[in-house]
C-alpha cells in the first residue's frame, strides 16, 4: 500500500510540510511516494494502489504551477476521488480542486481556472491577510487549528460539502458556518496546525479509513497537547478574530 506526497518542493509553507514527516512516522507499513512538479503523479494510475494523497500550502505563484501540473490529469483525479480514495488538501491547496480563483489585487484583476472537480470558487485579496484561531466539530470530534490566508472560498450550485461545523472562528468564508470541503474521502481545509498533528482524533479517524489500527505515535503527548489547547479555545476570553491584519 502506498501514500503519495505531492510537490514538497513548493507545498511547504506554514508547517504543512511536516505532514509528510508525520504521515511517514504514522504509516510505517505504507510505501511513501514523493512526487515533484515535473513528475507524473502515481495516484492517477489505479494500478499503483495509492491509498492516500496529500497536498499542502504553497505560495500563490506556486499554486498556479500546481494547477498546471495537475490539469492534464483532471479526469483521473476526479475518478480517484469518486472512487472513494483519500485525498487531503490543507491550506490553499483545497482551492486547486474548485472551479476558479478570482484575484482582486490592486494591480491585477484576473481569474485563475482551477481543476473544476468540485463546485466552489475562491476569491483572493493579497492586501488583506486573515489570521485567526478556530474551533469546530466533525463527527463529534472537536477540530482545532489556525487560519492564515489571503483567500475565502464559497461553495456554488448548492452542493453540500460540509466538513467541519464552525463553533468559534471563521469558516470557508466570513458568512459560512462550515470550514473545509468534504466530498466522499476528499478532505480540504484551510486549517493550519499542521492539521493532522494538531487533531489526533481526526488522525485516528484517518487511520480507521485506511484500515489501520487507530493508535497514534506519541499518543499520550498528542492528546495532552490537544486537550490543553482545547481548554484554551473553550475559554470565553480567547479571541478568535482576525489578528495582525
Amino acid at each position, binding site marked *: 500500500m502506498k501514500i503519495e506526497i505531492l510537490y514538497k518542493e513548493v507545498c511547504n*509553507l506554514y508547517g504543512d510540510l511536516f505532514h509528510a514527516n508525520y504521515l511517514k512516522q504514522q504509516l510505517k507499513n505504507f510505501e511513501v511516494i514523493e512526487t515533484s512538479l515535473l513528475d507524473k503523479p502515481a495516484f492517477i494510475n489505479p494500478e499503483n494502489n495509492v491509498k492516500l494523497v496529500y497536498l499542502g500550502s504553497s505560495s500563490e505563484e506556486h499554486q498556479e504551477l500546481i494547477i498546471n501540473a495537475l490539469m492534464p490529469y483532471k479526469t483521473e483525479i476526479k475518478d480517484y476521488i469518486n472512487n472513494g480514495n483519500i485525498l487531503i488538501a490543507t491550506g490553499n491547496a483545497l482551492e486547486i480542486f474548485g472551479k476558479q480563483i478570482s484575484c482582486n489585487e490592486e494591480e491585477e484583476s484576473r481569474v485563475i481556472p482551477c481543476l473544476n472537480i468540485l463546485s466552489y470558487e475562491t476569491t483572493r485579496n493579497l492586501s488583506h491577510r486573515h489570521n485567526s484561531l478556530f474551533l469546530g466539530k466533525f463527527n463529534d470530534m472537536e477540530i482545532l487549528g489556525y487560519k492564515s490566508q489571503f483567500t475565502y472560498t464559497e461553495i456554488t450550485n448548492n452542493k453540500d460539502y460540509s466538513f467541519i461545523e464552525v463553533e468559534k472562528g471563521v469558516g470557508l468564508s466570513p458568512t459560512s458556518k462550515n470550514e473545509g470541503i468534504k466530498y466522499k474521502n476528499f478532505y480540504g481545509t484551510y486549517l493550519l496546525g499542521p492539521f493532522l498533528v494538531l487533531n489526533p482524533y481526526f488522525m485516528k479517524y484517518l487511520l480507521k479509513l485506511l484500515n489501520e489500527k487507530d493508535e497514534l505515535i506519541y499518543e499520550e503527548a498528542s492528546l495532552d497537547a490537544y486537550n490543553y489547547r482545547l481548554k484554551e479555545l473553550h475559554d470565553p476570553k480567547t479571541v478568535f478574530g482576525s489578528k495582525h491584519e
Partner: protein
Amino acid sequence: MENIKFYFALLSSKICLSLFKITGNRQDDRPGSLALRLYPNFLERVTKPKTVICVTGTNGKTTVSNLISTSLIKLGNKVAYNDWGANTKIGVARCLLDSVSIFNRPKKDICILETDELTSKDIWPYIKPNYIIVTNLSRDSMHRNAHPQYIFNEMNKGIIPSSALILNADDPISSFLGTNQNKKVYFGIDKLSTDHKKPYNSINDMAICPKCYTKLNYEFVRYNNISRVKCPNCDFESLKPDYLITKIDNEAKKIYLNHDKKEIAMPLINDSIFNIYNILSVITCLSTMGYTDENIIYALKNTEIVKSRYSSTTVNNITVSTIATKGLNAVATSTVCDYIANEKGNIELIMVLDDTFDNIDGSEAIAWIYDSDFEFINKDNIKKIIIGGVRNRDYRLRLLLAGIDDKKIVCTQNEMDTYKYIDTKNIDAIYIMHEVYFIKKSQQLKDLVINKILKEGNDK
C-alpha cells in the same frame, strides 16, 4: 494653505518630541504619529538629509543599522537613526523629525532608517533613499509576512529607480530585488569549509528555479536559502558578488575582501557567519558611498556588535549561555538549534520560546515549530531539554516527533522554574534558548542557573 498645514504639523510634533525627550521618553513614536496625522504627506514633504540609507531584511537589519550608524558617526557625519527599533512609517516620521529644524532645514548629514520589510513600500517612495541595504529575505511570521515571495513582491513595489541597492548575492531571493534602472552592488562570501553541498534544513524557499521551475543545483548551501545556486535547465544562477570575502581569519581577526581586482584585509569584529554578512553589507555600502578602504578600516576598528541576543558566562567549568531566537520564525530557530547541535561536551538546554504577543489572544499559533529543525538537537551529548511556558506540551510533542527521547524532556508551565530541573553534575554547557522578547527574563533565568551551579558545585 498647504505650507501652513505642514509647518503646523512640524512645529506641533517637534514640541511634542521635545516634551517626550525632557520626560525621558526619547523612544516614544507618538511625535511621529502626530506629524502624520496632522499632515499625511509628512514623509514626502519633510526635508531629508543629503543622504538617506534604508536597511531592511528578515534578519540582521538592526545590527547593520547600528554598525553603519556608528561607522558614519566615526567618519565625521551628523547622523539621525531610528535606533529604538521603530521601523514602520510612524517610527520613520519620528526619526525624520530629529533630522530637521523647525524651519524644515536639515540638521543632519545622513539619516539611517531601519525599515520593516512589509511596510517599506509605504515609506521608500516618499523618502527616496539613496541607498537600500537588504540583508536577506527568508521565512518569517506567517501571520504578517506570509512567505518570502510575497514579501519580495511587496518590497519591489516600493523600490524607486534612483535608489542604489546593496544586495546579498548569496541570497538567491533578495538579490533579485529591484529593476534594471537601479544601481545594484552585490556582496557575498566565498565557499567555506563549513558549507553544505545541498539543503539540509527541512524547509527550503529556494528549491526550484524561478524562471523554468526546474529543481536547482547548489554550489554550496550555507544555511536555509543562503546559498549559491544554478539552474541545470536555463540561465538562472546566483549573481556574482562585487565585494567578495575570500578568507576569514578568526585568529588574526581579519576578513580578506576582494573588490575591484584587489584584496584588502578588514577587521573581523564578530566571527559568527551572520554577523560577517552584516559587516560585509556595511563595508559594501560605505565603499559604494565613496569611502576609501582606509576610512572603512578606521570606522570599523574597535566597533562592537550589540550583544543583547547572546551572552555567555563560565562558572565552575560550566558555560551558561543565553541565545535569542525570533518568535514565529522557523529560520532563526533552526539556526540556533544548528549552532547548539554543533557544540561539544555535555549540554543541557532550556527552551523558553512562547511568543508573548501571539499568546495574548489566549492561544498561540505554533505551525512554525513544525517548519523549525528541532531534529538538529537530537544529539547524544544534549543530555536534557527543559521546556518552559504554556506551550510546553506542543514543544514536547514536536521534540518527540523529532526523535528525541521522552526521558530527556522536562516540561514546566512557568519559564522561570526551568532552572530547577538542570543537573549541575557532568555538564559542560547550559544553553538558555529564548524568544527575543524574553531578553530581560533570560538574564534573570541565567542568574538563577548560575546560582544553582555555585550552590551545588560541579564535580567534573
